[in-house]
Structure formats: structure tokens, C-alpha cells
């Protein structure tokens, strides 16, 4: 017997549960919830690539309509990652470029746990980073400054601060991995 659940209850479900419900139970509410979660992000990605708001909106609609079929055709384990790649590839195709290679969106988190890394390893890895990245990471994570505050202090743009932080974070993770391998 099919149990009717409200939209609020759907919002509590994870991406994978929503996909499962759509694929196996054919519940259209799940797609609405997924669009609520990622529609604006897909639009931002499309606009970032296409630089045209109208085309970006059309591309977003096209991606989500294509998604209705793709969810049933492919076995999708990480929905967010898959959607990001799909949106990026669509925009690149639209621009006449080749598809991007699959790259991990979330580099950290699940791969690391308290048991796997120690405070000393992090300190060592931070010390090995370039000065610009290390200072940004220090200002952002330890001194809890926002992008704008860091950008104002260093007299750079917020985008540059963001990119420096992302780059320093990735390198930090790589260095910790290396330190774990050595130890």
C-alpha cells in the first residue's frame, strides 16, 4: 500500500532516497524536492558557463527534464556529483567544448576521520603550504574571517580569496594523505 507523505517529509529525505523513490516508486514529488535543492545551483553553473541568463534558464530546464529519463536509465550513487558533472558537460557541449573529466566535488570529509589523522599531521601539512594559502587558511578557519574581510585585508577580490582558500584546502588534504602514507 502506498503511503502518502507530504512535501515537508520529502524535504527531510537524502538525495539518494529521493532518487530511489522516483525511480522505483515513480513519485514526482521527489523531483520537485531535488529541483528545490539544486535547481538554483544548476542555474548558477549554467550562467557561469554560458554567460547568458536566458540560455542558462533554458539549459537548466533541459538538464532537469533530461534528468527524468537519466535517473531511470543510469544507476546514480552520488546524485549531487552526477548532477554537477551533467550540468557542466551540457554547458560545455553547448559551447562546443569537449566534456569535462570527472572530478571529485567534495574532496574532504568522508575520506577523513578523527582516527585517520592527527593534530600534528595537520600542523605539519599547514607548514608545508605556500604563504598565501597558509595565511588565507589561517584567517578563514582559525580567525573566522569572511571572504570579504580577508579580501579587504589583503586588498584582493573575494573571488581570489575563495580560489586561494579552495586551492590551499586541496593541497592540505594531499599533504595529509602523504604524511599518512609515510607514517
Amino acid at each position, binding site marked *: 500500500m502506498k503511503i502518502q507523505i507530504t512535501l515537508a517529509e520529502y524535504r527531510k529525505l537524502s538525495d539518494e532516497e529521493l532518487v530511489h523513490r522516483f525511480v522505483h516508486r515513480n513519485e514526482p514529488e521527489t523531483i520537485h524536492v531535488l529541483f528545490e535543492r539544486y535547481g538554483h545551483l544548476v542555474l548558477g553553473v549554467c550562467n557561469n*558557463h554560458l554567460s547568458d541568463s536566458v540560455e542558462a534558464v533554458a539549459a537548466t530546464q533541459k538538464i532537469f527534464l533530461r534528468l527524468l529519463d537519466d535517473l531511470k536509465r543510469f544507476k546514480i550513487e552520488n546524485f549531487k556529483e552526477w548532477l554537477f558533472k551533467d550540468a557542466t558537460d551540457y554547458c560545455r557541449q553547448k559551447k562546443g567544448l569537449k566534456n569535462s573529466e570527472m*572530478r571529485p566535488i567534495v574532496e574532504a570529509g568522508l575520506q577523513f576521520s*578523527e582516527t585517520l589523522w592527527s593534530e600534528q599531521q595537520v600542523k605539519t601539512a599547514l607548514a608545508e603550504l605556500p604563504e598565501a594559502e597558509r595565511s588565507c587558511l589561517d584567517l578563514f578557519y582559525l580567525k573566522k574571517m569572511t571572504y570579504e574581510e580577508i579580501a579587504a585585508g589583503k586588498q584582493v577580490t573575494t573571488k581570489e580569496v575563495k580560489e586561494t582558500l579552495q586551492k590551499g584546502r586541496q593541497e592540505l588534504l594531499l599533504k595529509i594523505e602523504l604524511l599518512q602514507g609515510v607514517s
Partner: protein
Amino acid sequence: MKERIDHIFESSTCLTRRQVTDYVNKTMSREECLAAEHHINSCGFCSAALDGLTPQILKNMDNGFLKEHLSLIRPQVHLSSIAPTASGNLVQRRPKKNAKAPLVKTSSITAALLLGFGVLWYLQYGSKLEPRTNNSVVQKSVPVSAVSTGANLPGHKPAEVSAAQPQEKVVVTEASFHPATQPEQQRPQPLITTKPGEEQTTASKTEKPEANSAIETEKKATENNSDIPAAIPKPAALPVKEEHRATPPKASSKKEEQSPQELYESGKYGAALNIYKKQMSSNGSRSEQEAALQAANCYLKLGQKDNAVKLMQSLVETGNGSPRRQAKRQLKDLEKSEAE
């Protein structure tokens, strides 16, 4: 230190639309902004999205297209939409193109059938009826003449009647009477339609002027009858009438007065044969053929089968119309009877 470093690798859910809008519009609180930037650092999707998002473009986003698409894929059935189907209106009957067409069609078919049957009936029996009607006229003339002579009426005085209405004239009028050729005004109503009882009363009254006037009108009618165009076929009894005209009336010679048909019916085949032989030689082709047929019948009755067969064969060879057909039929019957 470890607690502060831990959240570098924390994974959090992506920014909501409201959060993104607030972040883009810079309406977030500092704490919220720090949390959002923490996530942006770890999430490439949100980071890439925020690079392309502006306050204007977020207003254009709508999920109406998904609702439309899903409603097209899965149309929702409401009870109100089921109601007409349940009432049996799902199958719409086509309006008949021509509602009056079947009536016209059936009536035309029936008319055609009736016409066809009428033609068939005429071909089968209509041609046979012609001599019968003539005979009926001839037969009719007999009782009328008998009435006029008073032969069949009890207590009637033949002498008076004969004096009042000459037999010849009566016979002539009866024989010459033909409903198709006579106009309504010239028809001698009392002479034909009167019953024997009525006739008796008229005869007893002996209204000579009226009778004479009636006879005169009859004479005129016969004169007019001679003016009938040749296209209208005269009845077969006409020759008998002419014969009677030619010969003066004789009250005693009943044999001559009697028609050959009557003679035949009364069993006087010889006398009938003689009359028929005369008719064969003196009359037109149609009546001649009929007379020949009747003569053949007389021969058959008299036992002269060969003569009868000869006459019928000649009729079959030279004749036409109903006499020929009758002769053919009778010949076949004869052959069958001989074979048996």
C-alpha cells in the same frame, strides 16, 4: 586547536536558494556568511554556482516547467472527468447523414417491387383476362336479353316485353356496351344494372316513351361506338353483335341467338364449332385465333383429336398473344396425356 581544524573537513549540505539569494544580495549575517563560505570552500558545485549567480537571474528561476511536464506524462484523472464516461457518453454516436434517406429508399423499393409484380401479373394473367371479359360481356348479354324477354322471370309476359323492347336492339346494346368506350352519360343504366325484380316492375309499368328514348340513346351510343378509333381494341363479342345486326331477329331460332360459348357450355359442341368456324373465316386475326382455339376445344370434346391438334398447331405456328400460348399449353397437356 584540533576542534578548530576539524571543521575544515566537515561536509555540509548545499546552500539553499534562500541562502544563495541572501549571500548574493549580501543580506546574510556574519555567522551565516561564515558557515556558507565554509561550505563553499568544500563544495565545488556551490562554489561554481555562486560564480554565475546574480540577484536578477535567481528571480527568473521557476519550477513550473516541471509541473507541466509531469502533468503531461501523468495526467491526473478527476472524478468529475470520469463522470461522463460512467454515464455512457464516452462513445459518441455519429449523427446520421440522411435521416430521411431510408424512408425514401424503402418506399422506392416497394414501389418498384409493386410495379414489377404488376407487370408480371399482367403478363401472366392480364392477357388471359381479355377473352374472359369478352365472354363475360357475351354471357352478360344473355341474362339481360333473358330478362328483357322474361325467360327467367316467373310470371312474366314475354309478348309484352318483346313488344315494348325489341330483342334485337337489347342484344345490340348489351353487346355493344363497353365501359371503357362508353361515356358516363350514354350508359343505359336501367338496362344493365337493374335486377330481375326491378325489371319486372318496369316491364309491368310498360313505360313506352321512356323505353323508346332509352333505345334511341342506345342506338346513338352504338353509332358513337362506331366512331371509336381503331387503336382501341374492340371486344371479341363484337362479331356476334354484327352477326345479329345482319340477320333479322327470329324469336323461334334460339340456337342462332345463343352465343357459341353458351352452346359450348351447354354441351352443344357441334353447333358451337360451326359458329367458331364461321368466326375463324370472317373476323380479324385476334378473334379468329380465339375462335380457332375454341373450335379446337370443341373438336377435343367431340373426340376429333387430330383436327384439334392441327388447329392448335396452326395456331402455335401462325398465331400470337394469349391464344397462341393457350394453344401451346393445351398441346403440351395433350402430349403429356398421350404419353401417360
